[in-house]
């Protein structure tokens, strides 16, 4: 028991939790924006892959790291546009379209990678983002090494939570996005374009998802691998429900999952001899389901989520 306490109070543990959580913060925020506008985006897993690949490739072919992030965001927005066109003006099934986008984006990423690198035996590498210490803050005992020795994208992710929360709650744009997910007819009556708002929100959200993918290849690691997203996108879908569609709670949910995963790794190394390792690998998911059940009982999803808006249609 004391060992568990030591584990949880180590700065390195929380630093690891935040590192693991970073791509999930981007993904969850992105999905949250889409769903708040009324569009479920199951293309997330594929958009993660596309972001990871395009961001990394940009840097590999001589681009700056931040240019890589930008390219990833643009690629993500592109897939978002495709998803939005199919689901918003055309009103197709958001489930089917989203899964289609995931398959398309994943395969297109692998295809592009193989066209660019037909003959490699070991994945090519880049020089990734390095951790940045924030003068003053990094020297605070415990909190410094846990929070303020991260890579720039992690700071960006946290900043983004604040920005998205502000825009969603306090600006006319946020109100319009939320309204188009709750009552699009009211938005239309105001003379605003529901299509425009929804397409814009899905593109912006998809751009964030792609940055989450780029974090994996530009910051957490330095090469692109097939299948390296490993279900992180799907976790974000669950985290949005956990967060009850609130950006602040999304940050909390992502951190919680990161902490569970960091704990799992450490528990496996301490008491792994006694219990099969699969139990530990299962732990973060199990605990997340538990948290989801507890949190989502009161969750109210956007009223018009997954309902296509057809201008002039009377219900």
């Amino acid at each position: 028991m004391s060992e568990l306490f030591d584990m949880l109070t180590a700065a390195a543990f929380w630093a690891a939790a935040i590192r693991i959580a970073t791509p999930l913060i981007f993904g969850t925020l992105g999905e949250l924006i889409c769903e708040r506008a009324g569009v479920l985006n199951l293309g997330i897993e594929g958009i993660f892959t596309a972001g990871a690949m395009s961001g990394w490739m940009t840097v590999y072919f001589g681009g700056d790291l931040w240019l890589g992030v930008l390219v990833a965001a643009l690629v993500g927005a592109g897939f978002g546009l495709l998803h939005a066109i199919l689901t918003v003006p055309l009103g197709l099934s958001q489930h089917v379209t989203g899964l289609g986008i995931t398959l398309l984006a994943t395969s297109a990423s692998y295809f592009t990678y193989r066209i660019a690198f037909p003959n490699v035996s070991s994945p090519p590498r880049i020089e990734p983002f390095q951790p940045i210490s924030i003068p003053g803050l990094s020297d605070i005992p415990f909190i410094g090494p846990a929070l303020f020795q991260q890579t720039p994208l992690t700071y960006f992710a946290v900043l983004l939570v604040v920005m998205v929360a502000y825009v969603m709650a306090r600006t006319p744009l946020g109100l319009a996005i939320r309204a188009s997910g709750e009552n699009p007819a009211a938005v239309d009556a105001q003379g605003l374009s529901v299509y425009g708002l929804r397409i814009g929100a899905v593109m912006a959200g998809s751009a964030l998802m792609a940055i989450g993918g780029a974090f994996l290849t530009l910051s957490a690691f330095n090469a692109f691998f097939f299948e390296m997203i490993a279900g992180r996108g799907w976790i974000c879908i669950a985290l949005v429900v956990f967060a009850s569609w609130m950006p602040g709670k999304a940050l909390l949910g992502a951190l919680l999952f990161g902490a569970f995963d960091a704990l799992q790794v450490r528990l496996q190394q301490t008491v792994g001899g006694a219990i099969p390792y699969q139990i530990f690998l299962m732990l973060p998911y199990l605990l997340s389901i538990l948290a989801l059940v507890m949190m989502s009982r009161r969750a109210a999803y956007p009223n018009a989520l997954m309902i296509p808006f057809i201008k002039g249609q009377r219900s």
Partner: protein
Amino acid sequence: MTRRSFVACLFAVVALCAMALFSAPPASAKDKPLKVAAVYTVPVEQQWVSRIHIALKAAEARGDITYKFSENVANTDYERVMREYAEQGSDLIFGEAFAVEKAARKVAADYPKIAFVLGSSFGPEKPNLSVFDNYIQEPAYLTGMVAGKLTKSNKIGMVGGYPIPEVNRLMNAFMAGAKEVNPDVKFSISFIGSWYDPPKAKEAAFAMIDRGADVMYAERFGVSDAAKERGVKAIGNVIDTSKDYPGTVVASALWHMEPTVDYAIKQVLADKYQAENVGPMSEMKSGGASLAPLDPAVVPKDVADLVMAKEKAIKDGSFKVAVDDKEPKPTM
């Protein structure tokens, strides 16, 4: 032509085609280049599969074979892809049957004229299915000796994908080697439940280094990166990554598929191919396994000498490394 007679004609044509296909006389004596195909469940960058891919590429460059391959084939698709290559008239098909043993063996039985050489944890099957595996426990043992000598904290961290025989046997040999030279050494082991999640492997490695491990056994991509960032040593596995991590990866157990691939090609060309276990071709004495050159800047001369003496003993048969496929357990 009435509809009925059209259908009858169609049936006749199909039946004729099928007969032609199945009764085609098998080519007995084979000429260069041999038609070789390979079916992989992972991309060719993956450490394990890259060894087969490189060996076949080399054979292709020599002009012995023409080489076609499919990578990243899902297990559910594996049988179909194998059959497609078989139908295209391949002479020799390489693959990995681990997760699709039943299906792969069924395909091999359906095409007795084609030679199948598959990675497998089970035995060969007459008349045409040979099996191989990464039996590189000998150099793994040697790298364990290096690790046992280099660790100052007596703590070694090991991160693996899944505890399957192919992984376990190398980990066990590595641990036995380390214990031989340093009985006090303790091991921390984790499996990440994925072949392809370097960020996760890196996190597992960081956690071990935080607990005091100063030599990391890098079974997966990502572990050496963690070792490099934290300034500890790493031991490579299957492929040589020491050029990517100078000063970090100090010793590697390498697998070479060239002896196995070249042997299979030779047998098929000579029309002498038969089902057998070609696993021993991956051992040190056959040239299928080797120890990558030790980094003299990091590995002291007396340690290198000790390892070289053991290598000699392995090669002349006076020392045998046990093959232990059981899941290794952590000891710290």
